[in-house]
């Protein structure tokens, strides 16, 4: 009789002891339906997203590197990228400033109509782009409420790059505000209090204590905004690569901000 069989007897007792072992390798959930739901998920995902997406890659690969380069970097495509990214950058800058103070006001101040403002911030998210498009075109057109005021000054907005910037600012606003809001809310009061009690002025506290801790979220909002170039999608593949690069940057910034906090 070996040592082992003395410690762990054979027969029914053995299976009882094994069942009591912590399940290191088989952390199976007791809840049924795993195979079915995962199967449906992967099948639908493949049909709706993965197979059609691979069509773009294969179609583009069919052009060969030379053809791809010629199509992706033709003068027309380059002009479209310049407008897309340039306008998105400016719009992100505008939203970066106004989105930050909007988030600040929504979190820190109590004022009449705050709930209404809070709900309205999501309007660009809920309003269909076609509606926003014709509405902005009418507003900033030569006879519009705002365009009419700017026309005598020689400023044209509708149907110019300026109009693209206005539209992108409109669309990006909720992304920036909603990214910054939870961070402003979680800002620790005690750090600000400490700065104030050490004699820092309110402005110095904001500039040296508050703004640096908002920076990661602000960058995320900035990048998310860039994402939303719905205006000029020129060549699918280049835009896709750019989109994935953005996604990567956003994930990296978020990982960094998690470590930072």
């Amino acid at each position, binding site marked *: 009789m070996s040592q082992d069989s003395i410690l762990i007897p054979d027969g029914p007792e053995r299976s009882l002891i094994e069942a009591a072992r912590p399940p290191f390798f088989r952390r199976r959930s007791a809840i049924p*339906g795993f195979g079915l739901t995962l199967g449906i998920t992967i099948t639908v995902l493949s049909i709706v997203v993965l197979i059609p997406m691979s069509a773009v890659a294969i179609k583009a690969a069919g052009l060969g590197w030379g053809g791809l380069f010629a199509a992706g970097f033709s003068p027309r495509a380059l002009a479209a990228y310049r407008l897309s990214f340039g306008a998105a950058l400016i719009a992100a800058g505008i939203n970066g400033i106004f989105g930050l103070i909007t988030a600040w006001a929504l979190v820190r101040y109590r004022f009449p109509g705050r709930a209404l403002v809070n709900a309205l911030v999501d309007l660009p998210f809920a*309003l269909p782009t076609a509606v926003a498009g*014709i509405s902005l075109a009418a507003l900033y057109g030569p006879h519009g409420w705002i365009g009419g005021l700017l026309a005598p000054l020689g400023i044209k907005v509708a149907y110019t790059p300026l109009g693209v910037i206005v539209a992108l600012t409109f669309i990006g606003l909720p992304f920036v505000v909603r990214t910054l809001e939870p961070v402003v809310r979680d800002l620790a009061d005690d750090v600000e209090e400490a700065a104030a009690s050490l004699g820092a002025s*309110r402005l110095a506290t904001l500039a040296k204590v508050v703004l640096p801790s908002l920076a990661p979220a602000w960058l995320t909002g900035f990048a998310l905004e860039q994402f939303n170039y719905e205006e000029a999608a020129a060549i699918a593949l280049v835009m896709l690569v750019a989109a994935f690069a953005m996604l990567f940057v956003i994930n990296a910034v978020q990982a960094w901000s998690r470590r930072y906090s």
Partner: protein
Amino acid sequence: MSLTHARHPTEDPPWARWTILALVLGFLALMLILPLAAVFAGALRKGLEASLAAISDPDAISAVKLTLLVAVIAVPFNAAFGICAAWAIAKHYFPGKSFLITLIDIPFSVSPVVSGLIYVLVFGAQGWFGDWLIDHNITIIFAVPGIVLATIFVTFPFIARELIPLMQEQGVAEEEAAVSMGASGLVTFFLVTAPNIRWGLFYGVLLCNARAMGEFGAVSVVSGHIRGLTNTMPLHIELLYNEYDFVGAFSVAALLCLLALVTLALKTGLELTQSVRGRHV
């Protein structure tokens, strides 16, 4: 310092508060309220009669019907997918979960025009299945099925991304208790899980529906813009606008505006009363 001037050290001085508030309200009025007002002003420019006549035009009515049809197919489809995906991901252990979530997120990171294009590449006349579809007399691109597919694609992650974190947070204890007492999977879902996720599901459906009814870019690529047949409301708005029928365009736009406002009101109500996660992007 007298008591009336006492201010908490983390409070902004009054002049700063008023400046910031004025800037915020001014910016939001300029960027959000003016465009909204412009839609209704444009619709009512020639009076309510003209506006109502524009909405009851047969082409406008068929656009409304098509938009509703697309939403009625796409939203329940994505809801069913979202529930399946959340059940598999949140209630079970398996490797590669976060990779799967990233794959589900793809439609969010793709420009809508590209989303339409990928379906043209697969189902269009020159696409992968083009010849086969023509031989069997099936049209997908420039027809209603293409519009439904493109809409499903752009709204694909909404409900799944709402439910997955919610169900992960709720854990598996309640479901395990139900199963260990002999409940079947379906009974567990409908009696234990469903009551816990109903508001989150409703929130996801709300956002998904708003996007499904309002999608322009992707649908525009696959629709073909055939009046009365493949024109959804957003496409009909563009068509009328390009024909200089401004009252017509803004009247249909006002309908979509009302949809957006109802969506916002319900969404805000849910966020204030229920513990749903306010996810954007």
